[in-house]
């Protein structure tokens, strides 16, 4: 394994400039390999104090745990010896409820599961259900779903960026990122009438076609949003405090990351170039020109870099999607799943029957099962659906990326300081709605 030292030229540092007025170049790695930004020599440790371990309970009601996560930490001084996470405070039984709902009725539940990524979940669920029904969606619908999924990826990463900044002590990027997130919410509101709980898709199509002038809104965002990213990066990437608080924390090697089932930016920051959009493509992602950013140190700082770069790539995808958005119908022409137009339902016998059967009985997929993974902002999200031929799934399983990512937190925080637990936890980008379901 290659070993090389990483040096980052810190521009914004509390130590300021050197005599010549240039930003100080601070080696981030000390001779002894000890932690610390400004240490030339590792601090000589006190002789072992008599080990009295302390029990610290963080959460479940603590803003830094990003929801109702509870961490019980065993501390030796300030160093974490053991971490025992507790989850389940938000368990709502989505999967159980889904067994009593028709496929289109499950879509609102997917909004509420990873609530920072609702359009992405809607798209993922619809893709899974369409595989189960054996439906090929229209080209316009595919491109619209790509736009929805990438917008929600940016949205989710912005929330991650803002909240992580607050956790680590920077307030300004939070305001910038949430302003941009608000802009996306406004766009979604014009499309589907809701901001968080979008319920954007239906099996075989979308809730609605985009309103007139909507693509210009997205185009404005695509043109302007990289400026915000530049501002945020200028604020953070070479900021001495930010670098000092994030670098070298929660390191996972590529082999470990794969073994722990990590996915998404977490896995890629550890140096594994695996993205579902590239390796198991869906919605024609292989025809878009975009890169998969990969880190090579697997720490919190690399996760930050990967997420920021992913937002830039999402902007690229959005730009291409807007350029290729074809005309044509949004919904498939399949009376099994798509309601006929109201005028037809009231004038034609066939359409009325389809309307009646769909509303009263619900669309019925053939017997079968499928697992359709997508690349959500948190990682690999898969919907595993089993049908026994009735209108309601036998089993509807969410493969929650945050759940699996969070299960590695004891491994990540061991040996780090208590204050670093907050930064590491923030870097996982958890959403408790998805973890507890």
């Amino acid at each position, binding site marked *: 394994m290659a070993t090389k030292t990483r040096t980052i030229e810190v521009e914004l540092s509390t130590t300021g400039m050197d005599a010549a007025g240039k930003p100080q170049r601070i080696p981030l790695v000390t001779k002894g390999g000890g932690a610390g930004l400004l240490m030339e020599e590792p601090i000589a440790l006190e002789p072992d104090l008599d080990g009295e371990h302390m029990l610290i309970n963080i959460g479940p009601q603590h803003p830094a745990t990003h929801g109702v996560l509870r961490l019980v930490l065993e501390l030796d001084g300030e160093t974490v010896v053991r971490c025992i996470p507790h989850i389940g405070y938000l368990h709502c039984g989505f999967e159980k409820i889904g067994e009593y709902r028709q496929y289109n009725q499950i879509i609102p539940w997917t909004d509420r599961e990873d609530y920072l990524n609702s359009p992405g979940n809607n798209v993922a669920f619809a893709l899974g259900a369409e595989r189960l029904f054996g439906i090929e969606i229209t080209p316009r619908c595919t491109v619209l779903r790509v736009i929805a999924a990438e917008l929600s990826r940016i949205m989710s990463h912005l929330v991650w960026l803002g909240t992580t900044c607050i956790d680590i002590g920077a307030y300004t990027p939070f305001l910038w990122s949430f302003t941009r997130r608000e802009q996306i919410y406004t766009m979604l509101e014009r499309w589907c009438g809701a901001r968080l709980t979008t319920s954007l898709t239906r099996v075989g199509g979308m809730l609605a076609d985009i309103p007139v002038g909507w693509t210009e809104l997205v185009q404005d965002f695509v043109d302007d949003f990289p400026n915000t990213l530049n501002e945020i990066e200028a604020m953070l990437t070479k900021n001495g405090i930010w670098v000092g608080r994030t670098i070298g924390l929660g390191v996972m090697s590529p082999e470990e990351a794969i073994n722990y089932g990590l996915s998404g930016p977490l896995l890629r920051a550890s140096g594994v170039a695996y993205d579902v959009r590239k390796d198991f493509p869906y919605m024609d992602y*292989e025809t878009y020109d975009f890169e998969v950013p990969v880190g090579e140190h697997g720490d919190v700082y690399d996760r930050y870099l990967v997420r920021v770069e992913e937002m830039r790539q999402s902007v690229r995808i959005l730009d291409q999607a807007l350029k290729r958005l074809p005309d044509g119908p949004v919904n498939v022409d399949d009376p099994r799943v798509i309601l006929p137009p109201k005028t037809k339902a009231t004038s034609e016998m066939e359409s009325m029957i389809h309307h009646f059967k769909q509303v009263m009985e619900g669309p019925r997929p053939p017997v079968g099962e499928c*697992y359709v993974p997508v690349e959500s902002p948190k990682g690999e999200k898969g919907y595993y659906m089993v049908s026994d031929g009735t209108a309601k799934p036998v089993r509807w399983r969410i493969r929650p990326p945050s759940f699996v990512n969070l299960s590695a937190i004891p491994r990540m925080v061991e040996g780090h300081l208590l204050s670093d637990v907050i930064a590491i936890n923030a870097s996982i980008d958890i959403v408790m709605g998805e973890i507890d379901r």
Partner: protein
Amino acid sequence: MNAPYTESFDIVSAGNALPEDAEPPRTPVAVPRQGGAVNPSAAALRDQFGDAIERVSVVWGETTVYVARGRVGEIVRWLHDDVLQQYDYLSDLTAVEYRDYETPLEVVWHLRSLPYRRFLRIKVELPKGTPLEVDSVWPVYHAADWMERECFDMFGISFNGHPDLRRILMWEQYREGYPLRKDFPLRGRFSRAEQLRQALAQNPEAKYSMEELSIAEAYGELPEDMRRRLASGEPTGE
């Protein structure tokens, strides 16, 4: 202690075991409901394990291998270790119970080979009336830790060899059974009044599990009556 952060890792790419001229992956189109290309690992499994492979089916383009319940541990281990398979990634682990009582419960593993870009579903059938037990794959994939706990919590399936099999989403004193089983009513077994009574009757002091209380010093800080109750062997939980 974690690895020193001076190290930078070599990049691992998915699909790196495939030949250079292999077809790049594409969005699947017009997937047939049954039949189609079978994952080559299924044939390899047949060669290696023979009778332990009960049947193979391809539904919606995904290969499912039904294996004998006692041998899933070694089969998954082989799939992970064999250089021609390299299923290094556990995507998902769950269980399925069907609506009719006769159909056995199924435990489902979704394995992924990043180097070969393959996807394989392993299933084990647990007939009704038999003990719901199956090997844990935790020694092979650490990702299985919480997934198996969730499966135990929701279906009551025991995973032999799991280091810490206890409830994860429901609390430790939950006594209503296993919520995702079909005989579990949607609203729960107990009435709302009973659920509320149990919630109010919980001992708020017992918010640490026994394992956590074993952490030194915490025990000494507990109130006297709590220590007495713990010493008498009273179970604790969250």
